[in-house]
């Protein structure tokens, strides 16, 4: 857990944009490993397996949230703002660590990046975060997602083009 906790938590935080949800899923993932060590069958790299479990747990969380929101909407409650997920993620990340004064520039870049990431599609964001946090190769990521490697690379390429446009590079 020590080796992978930062990467897995960071990935979950970016996906969910909520600290409480990320922590819940984080617990679920590592306790699954503790209670069922045989689940890892050594057919793939441990990191790929771990991130697959994390991703599936996050997807389950989204499904539960989605049905909960559907019930809330039908009862007249307002649904949370989904478009601000990247900004919320940045806020959650910023809240999780102290902000030294000298990191103001990074914070500003981070805000600009958050706005840029908001413009990415869900598919593009997923691949981008997975690559960054897991460090897995694109071939491994394609295997995890059940997609051709060309599709994964195309999503990353479009993400890079969009980031270029939003960051003014």
């Amino acid at each position, binding site marked *: 857990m020590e080796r992978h*906790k930062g990467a897995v938590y960071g990935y979950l935080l970016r996906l969910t944009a909520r600290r409480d949800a990320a922590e819940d899923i984080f617990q679920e993932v590592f306790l699954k490993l*503790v*209670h069922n060590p045989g689940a890892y069958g050594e057919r793939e790299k441990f990191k790929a397996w771990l991130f697959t479990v994390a991703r599936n747990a996050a997807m389950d969380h989204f499904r539960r949230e989605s049905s909960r929101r559907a019930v809330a909407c039908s009862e007249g409650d307002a649904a949370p703002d989904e478009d601000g997920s990247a900004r919320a993620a940045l806020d959650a990340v910023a809240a999780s*660590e102290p902000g030294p004064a000298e*990191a103001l520039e990074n914070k500003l870049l*981070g805000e600009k990046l958050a706005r840029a990431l908001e413009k990415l599609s869900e598919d593009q964001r997923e691949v981008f975060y997975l690559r960054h946090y897991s460090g897995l190769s694109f071939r491994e990521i394609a295997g995890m997602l059940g997609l051709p490697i*060309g599709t994964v690379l195309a999503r990353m*390429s479009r993400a890079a083009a969009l980031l270029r446009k939003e960051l003014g590079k």
Partner: protein
Amino acid sequence: MDCGYGEKLILYFYGEAGAELKAGMEAHLKTCAACRGSFAALAAAEGALREETPLPSASVLAAVMSRARAALAGEKRRPFFSWTWAETAFAGALAAALVMAFAAAPRGNSPELAWNSGLDSTLDSVEYSLYRTQSDQSASAGDWDYNYGLLNAEGQALDTTAG
């Protein structure tokens, strides 16, 4: 305008390009502003994400470690006789196999054993045949000694009659 190098740029940026692709990309980047911009945007994004090191709260980490230790302790405290059904079935099958092997194994002193026991190297095949007809195939050495004694007496009797 799409230069067609978008996916190659991704492989190049993330260090997954072979030597030929790497050389091709480096040449292309000198002439394509769009690819240079995408490269810079990826570098900025990756750098910004690397600056952030979010971790779960200490209480969450402690809860996971505590439950992990409890799960491992539960495994170690498992009583010796709390076998699973598979373990019980295996132990039963092994015991049955051992019983059957013991039952099928030849018991007692086989004639070969008695013959080759080295008790009396002068004992020849005739005397052995006599031993067999007179012996009740008992496994005990005492029986053998007794019967051998009878043979000895009979042999002496034979010598006497022979003159």
